[in-house]
């Protein structure tokens, strides 16, 4: 497929690229890192500002015009702080945790296309790669939780472990629906196949994936690992200075990465009229990120058993049914127009959410002690 618009980044398309493989590699590595850092800075500002507005506050407005420099000021402040390591901490683990949490997030961006074919590596298992790699981030979290030698941290880490193991399943199942519709695991192919954005073809898949992704990256209302009102700061209670900054960065980088993945999988990625493709990707990413902020604004945190119950009793059956429905549609009517499935799937999604809401309940969570 031809690129829809000749944007400013046309030059980075591999076909036009003058150098060899290593140049491509180096260039994209730099692009990815810079892109991620800039996006994170934007995201931090955006989140604080948007939440402030919704909470009848102003949000950051002092540093720089409209407070735009606030993330940088924060970063400088945090970086200048002393690095405190608790005496009972496992020093090496404590030190390595933020690094290990940080790496996979960067890796996610390697397979996200900024334009037709413009990405660091067009893996033919792209989406599987994302799921696999994002599960490594968990290791960082529980290293932090365990290495701190703090009970709050340990509780946060244990919650994280439980949540991640549970939420990967509906997440992968929701992705499988998309993969079935598009017929490829490669992110670029998935974008190219979306003549209708997948959010319409797979509305239930979108909802499930959005929920599961929120849980996977500790966004509210599933931010139990760092539940501020219960565990003070969860797994990163004992972190300060640079390492805390790393975790802070990871948190937002994960959110941005997941937003980018969602916009690639469900919102047809870089595709869109008029604007250059990379801008479309950024716009869509920020749109998804805004959804996360919006939901965060209004939701209390769920409890751990409700979190697990939601995954196993609500998301999982719905994901399985969605998968079945998609499979039947794809297998039985391979040539039918997708618009028919749009209608059918939207009705199905509504019905399933309705039914699921009726049938789904967890106990009250009380345990006889």
């Amino acid at each position, binding site marked *: 497929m031809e690129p829809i618009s000749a944007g400013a980044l046309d030059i980075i398309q591999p076909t036009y690229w003058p150098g060899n493989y290593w140049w491509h590699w180096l260039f994209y590595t730099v692009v990815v890192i810079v892109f991620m850092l800039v996006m994170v800075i934007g995201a931090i500002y955006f989140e604080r500002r948007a939440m402030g507005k919704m909470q009848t506050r102003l949000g950051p407005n002092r540093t720089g015009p409209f407070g735009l420099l606030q993330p940088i000021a924060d970063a400088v402040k945090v970086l200048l702080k002393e690095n405190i390591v608790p005496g009972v901490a496992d020093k090496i683990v404590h030190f390595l945790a933020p690094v290990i949490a940080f790496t996979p997030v960067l890796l996610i961006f390697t397979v996200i296309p900024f334009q037709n074919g413009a990405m660091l590596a067009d893996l033919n298992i792209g989406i599987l790669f994302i799921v696999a790699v994002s599960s490594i981030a968990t290791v960082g979290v529980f290293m932090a939780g365990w290495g701190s030698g703090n*009970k709050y941290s340990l509780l946060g880490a244990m919650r994280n472990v439980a949540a991640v193991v549970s939420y990967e399943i509906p997440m992968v199942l929701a992705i499988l629906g998309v993969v079935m519709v598009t017929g490829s695991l490669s992110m670029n192919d998935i974008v190219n196949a979306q003549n209708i954005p997948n959010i319409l073809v797979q509305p239930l898949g979108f909802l499930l994936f959005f929920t599961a992704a929120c849980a996977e990256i500790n966004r509210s209302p599933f931010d139990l690992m760092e*539940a501020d009102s*219960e565990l003070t700061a969860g797994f990163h209670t004992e972190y300060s200075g640079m390492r805390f900054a790393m975790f802070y960065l990871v948190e937002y980088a994960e959110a941005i990465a997941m937003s980018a993945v969602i916009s690639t999988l469900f919102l047809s990625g870089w595709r869109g009229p008029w604007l250059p493709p990379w801008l479309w990707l950024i716009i869509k990413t920020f749109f998804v990120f805004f959804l996360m902020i919006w939901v965060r604004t209004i939701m209390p945190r769920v409890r751990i058993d409700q979190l697990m119950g939601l995954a196993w009793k609500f998301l999982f059956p719905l994901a399985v049914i969605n998968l079945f429905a998609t499979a039947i549609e794809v297998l039985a009517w391979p040539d039918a127009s997708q618009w028919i499935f749009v209608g059918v799937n939207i009705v199905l999604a509504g019905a399933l959410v309705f039914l699921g809401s009726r049938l789904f309940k967890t*106990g*009250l969570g*009380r*345990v006889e*002690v």
Partner: protein
Amino acid sequence: MTTTQELTLKTEPFILNIGPMHPSTHGVFRMRATLDGEVVTDIEPVFGYLHRGIEKLAEERTYTGIIPFTDRLDYLSPMSNNLGYCLAVEKLAGVKVPERGEYIRIITAELQRLANHCVAIGAMFNDAGAYFTPFLYMFRNREKIYDLFDMLCGQRVTYNYMRIGGVSQDLPEEFLPAVAKFLPQLKKFLDEYEFFVKQNEVFVARSKGVGILSKELAINCGISGPVARASGIKHDLRRDDPYSIYDRFEFDIPTAENGDCFDRFYVRVQEMRQSVRILEQAIKQVPDGPFRANVPQVIHPPAGESYAHIESPKGELGYYIVSDGSIAPYRFHIRPTSLINLGALRNMVRGWKVADLIFIFGSIDITMGEVDR
């Protein structure tokens, strides 16, 4: 729906200190929680981090001089504290408060109830993990009330407004119109707030059926106020033992049956509506006349003892004063609502998760200033 499930996976018990410095202990409070995984098997509250010995201090102050201390008991509702104390002293000394003074007292006390419930509900949501949104929406309105109080007595938190025999100053002329303007806004806001919160699935899931306090236990523990009313005890001192001039107003006592966190939230919202109702009646009826009886600043009540209690926003707040005829009370005891309401905490949280522990604790609405005194 069953209320219990078995504990299936036991791990080693694990003691977690929550507090004294913790984001959601409402002050300096410490709970030593024994956990089994996430489940709270036992807690032991530890107090005294804010103990200032007000009861002892009061034995060396004049009766008027104690009023500023009462501000600092429950610092979220100082007006009510003032009122209760003044009632006790007036009962002891036999002072009659003029009409206008009574009305001003009622207006301030009810406004104070609104302000307190704003914090109680908002903080409760914060404890549930909502990221400040419900809290700040409530604070928006609390701010308006505090502005009114500022207009009235020049302070925003520690008012020191009531005096034995009345109030310290008359109402400024802008006050009543401002209140009249504020009340419809508040009513509208409460509707919106309920719309915002009451059906939110996550909030309902977190609060319904959680932290149930049975009626019997509530009575046995001496629980009072909205917490008791949420458990189905239709007991309100404004109605059952009317002090001041509460018998002149029409209002209902909202109650609920389940005694769970949702009911405590909902009873508070309903109480706010009733307070608005009382205020609407009161600001229409305020008479002219003196606002304060002619009482000297230093009084010598006759020897004896008196106990006066009011329905403070948090529950029954009582003052027990023993006088020996001197200028200072011989014995000054406060019946602390928050401390006694906390008495059922252990029974309420056992078997729930850590997150619920925080939430249930928040739903009781305590102030450490009053617990520790």
